[in-house]
């Protein structure tokens, strides 16, 4: 077999970045700013689970676009299958635009562990963006978290859990609206959540949520 050409290697290092995804990044910057503020950590290629409050359809794109391109290429936003994977333009954008990983929210449609694709991605070294509230809320502060993040954290004790607060996006595109209002939104990255051995699920989820609230 031939040696990997340097250009090929670069292609492998950035599997997800298409022209479409660069266009998106520009569009998101103009519309909602999505200015990153690295408060508690620096951008780094280590295995990370970014978790954020969820108020708008733009959240996924805004958080993803706030990452530098090199990290964007190894970070996959987890998107609800019932919204993003319904075929047509939306599914195309999700797959080719921001390399989404679909998760099934509907209990009836699930086969096996819904977290399985997420675990596989983490195992292959890809970072994730998740919204542990499970759905969008029309408020500044996040609601209680669902337990998915706890299971991911337990199975991957070395992954860094980065709390992220998305500011203003619920004003830009509230639930039920289709056009985003241009606003300057910031994306605040906090310090990795400390791991405490033998912590109960409830305590962990509350602590994780509090880390996001502290950034608000």
């Amino acid at each position, binding site marked *: 077999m031939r040696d990997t050409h340097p250009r090929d290697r670069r292609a492998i290092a950035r599997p997800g970045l298409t022209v479409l995804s660069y266009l998106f990044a520009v569009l998101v910057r103009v519309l909602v*700013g999505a*200015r990153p503020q690295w408060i508690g950590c620096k951008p780094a290629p280590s295995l990370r689970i970014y978790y954020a409050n969820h108020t708008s359809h733009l959240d996924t794109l805004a958080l993803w676009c706030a990452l530098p391109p090199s990290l964007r290429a190894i970070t996959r936003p987890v998107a609800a299958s019932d919204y993003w994977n319904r075929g047509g333009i939306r599914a195309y954008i999700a797959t080719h635009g921001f390399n989404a990983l679909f998760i099934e929210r509907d209990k009836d449609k699930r086969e096996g562990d819904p977290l399985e694709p997420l675990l596989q991605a983490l195992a292959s070294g890809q970072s994730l963006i998740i919204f542990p509230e499970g759905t969008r809320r*029309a408020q500044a502060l996040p609601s209680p978290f669902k337990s998915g993040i706890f299971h991911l954290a337990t199975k991957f004790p070395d992954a860094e859990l980065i709390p992220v607060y998305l500011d*203003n996006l619920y*004003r830009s595109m*509230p639930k039920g*609206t289709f*056009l985003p*209002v*241009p*606003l*300057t939104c910031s994306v605040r990255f906090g310090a990795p959540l400390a791991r405490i051995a033998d912590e109960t699920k409830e305590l962990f989820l509350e602590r994780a949520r509090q880390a996001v609230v502290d950034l608000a």
Partner: protein
Amino acid sequence: MNMQQKFYWLFGGIGALLAIASIVGWLLQRRAPDSATIANLTARVRAWWVMVAVLAVCFLLGRSATIVLFAIASLFALREFVTLTPTRPGDHLPLVVCFYILLPVQYLLIFDDWYNLFAIFLPVYGFLLLPVLTASGGDTEQFLERVTKLQWGLMITVYCVSYVPALLLLQIPHYSDNLLLVIYLLLVVQISDVLQYVFGKLFGKHKIAPHVSPSKTVEGFVVGGASATAVGAALWWITPFTPLQAAGLAAVIVLAGFLGGLALSAVKRSLGAKDWGSMIEGHGGMLDRLDSVSFAAPVFFHLTRYFFEP
């Protein structure tokens, strides 16, 4: 000299000024590497290079590019204004209409040479439309405040700023270099801001409005404003004015710009912010650069229209 030559002379001069500013900044930074004021000064100069380059390219591209440039500037300024103003979900429709319909239409009217509608579109029809749209959201909580703030933001960031490219509409006998008139306005306003800031830092003792805008001083305003007026008079050769008329109009621009900075600073503070945004390094937001322009532009436009159009 034709317009092209005047243009190169102007931007050559601005480039030379900025080069001097860059060198001075570099020397100062070597003497006091830890000073925050000097770090801010060099950041400001760097941002000026970028702004002047963008303006120069747009002016070279001509009338359409200049109109589009100010439409984009309005978009960013309105974005900053709305970001700092509290809104409720019921404001979504009027906000969408402001950004995607009212703003583009206001600038399209300049393309279309339709001055009569341009002058009343936002103050009359925008004014009537916005409360209707807000009411359709069904939320009456703080209704008047919300409508008022949106209308106010629209007037400053879109209506007033659009008077800059509207200078291209003026038909002055024996003068067709209206792009130079745009440059004249921007140059006098910005040089006035810069000189008031510099002289304020150097000799400023008496604050004009300590609670509203702590950086404005009597010394800075008088010396900086007078120097900017002199610069405006010295630039009479790019305008349809005599040197004396140019001095008078420059003085009006300086005064209007100063008052605009003061008024918008008060608005900014009432919204609880020090800067409108952070998109221009060292300066703050787009609106921090456009605050004086938004007041000076309509005044300069109407005076020129009244006295110099037949």
